[in-house]
């Protein structure tokens, strides 16, 4: 990964709507170079998507999110890939991570109600053949996600003018 690409990613991570021209000015490089680097990263799927970070609890506060620790039996030749795919294809599943430690997959599931999430676990996740066990933890509050702090109470606390 080039230094320039890394800097572009840092700027986009802070605000995905920054355009190539602004980024070029900030990094003191040609606009065309920035455009080319971004296109390259998009093609290589380094940049996967430009999505808004939404504080869903403000949109509808009933949403329920759970983190589920899943223990599975890996398949010969494919390891965890096949079963991970079977799980992540469900639209209810927001993220899936392969973990080191006491369990194998960490699955984030979102539903409208507690019941909906519980039924996903018991009717869809647990019955999968290679799933040995699940442990479900419901998220009560999100403080920070992907480096972004959700609490907006603390703004700029500096004096308006100082020497």
């Amino acid at each position: 990964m080039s230094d320039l690409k890394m800097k572009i990613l840092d700027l986009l991570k802070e605000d995905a709507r920054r355009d190539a021209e602004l980024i070029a000015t900030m990094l003191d490089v040609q606009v065309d170079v920035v455009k080319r680097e971004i296109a390259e990263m998009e093609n290589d799927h380094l940049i996967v998507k430009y999505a808004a970070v939404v504080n869903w609890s403000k949109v509808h506060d009933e949403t329920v999110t759970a983190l589920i620790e899943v223990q599975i039996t890996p398949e010969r030749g494919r390891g965890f890939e096949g079963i991970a795919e079977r799980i992540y294809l469900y639209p209810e599943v927001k993220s899936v991570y392969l973990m080191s430690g006491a369990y194998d997959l960490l699955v984030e599931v979102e539903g409208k109600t507690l019941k909906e999430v519980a039924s996903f676990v018991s009717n869809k996740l647990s019955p999968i053949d290679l799933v040995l066990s699940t442990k479900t933890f419901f998220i009560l509050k999100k403080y920070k996600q992907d480096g972004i702090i959700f609490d907006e109470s603390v703004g700029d606390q500096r004096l308006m003018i100082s020497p």
Partner: protein
Amino acid sequence: MINEQQTAPVNRRTSFADYLAPQARSLKPSGIRRFFDLVSGRKDVITLGVGEPDFVTPWHVRDACVASLENGKTQYTSNAGMPELREAIGSYLNDRFKVTYNPADEILVTVGGSEAIDLALRSLIAPGDEILIPEPCYISYSPITTLSGGVAVGIETFAEDAFKLRAEQLKAAITPRAKVLILCYPSNPTGGVMSYDDWLPIAKLVEEHDLIVISDEIYAELSYGQKHVSFAAMPGMRDRTILVSGFSKAFAMTGWRMGYACGHPEIISAMLRIHQYTVMCAPIMGQVAALEALTNGMEEMERMIESYNQRRRLVVKGFREIGLECHEPQGAFYAFPSVKSTGLSSEEFAERLLTEGNVAAVPGNVFGLGGEGHLRCSYATSVAQLNEAIERIGKFVERVRNEG
């Protein structure tokens, strides 16, 4: 028998101002203060008037301070500052700027760089001594000089020179009474810097005229493009220089008030004596935090500097695009564009920009000679705010131009 004692009649003072010493009475509020009053209370103002980082002190630094409080570190430290901190400052200065000081008697930890400047001036000035101050500059040098009985002699620097101090100008200001030269590069408010080659003729004059230098290098780390050259690192200048710096700008620690001074043991020990009688020692909480910043904070510091640099490019381009001449500031976090083309004075421009354009910036004239016709704009604020501010200034400038 009543013994009537003869006493002189009491000369009653008619107001409390009469109690004030002449030097306190003559101390004027800074131009910045007046502007602060204008700004406060207004809503929806974007401010480019803030002279401090927009970052909060990195968490590991704050955490180290909290932990030390929990462990009961609430005592005085030695007058000069905790030995570990002085050691750390010594090796930091050596690593970054190639200047070497003995932590035992050449480094003094102070309450901000401000105290270090005050101590240095108080230690050096005898009544009537002339103190040479390149301007535009930070607002406190000249008042502190006056307070200590010295005579402040401003030396004008110019936008065409990127506000560098030139030997001709320095030479013209030197009289037989000249004793101290105060330097502040990278400069608040101009963003000007001095390179090795820029320093050479200055160092020669300092030597020739037997001057001593107070070099305020608080913005040293915030140098873009070229590495900062400490005046103390110039050949022969180490013992003639009191190097003043601190943690406020580079480590985003303004409110901690942590600074230091380094120099010849004779001078540092005089400063230490004043320091021990006036403040005892810098607060231990701040010293613990400063030590953590030096020990584990360099990476975070580099990140902050990179971020200032990105925003610097943005504002300089922005000002030029809306037709304000702007020399390229190579240090600190200020741009100092010229507003002369609008026909307004600094003050008129800043006041009208505030009331008509809802942007606050500090008029250049408050920083002394050479500041008139300029505006100090801090770019230590978010990219979104900077973009919005430049758009508002652009509209305002256009309106002013159409009036004429």
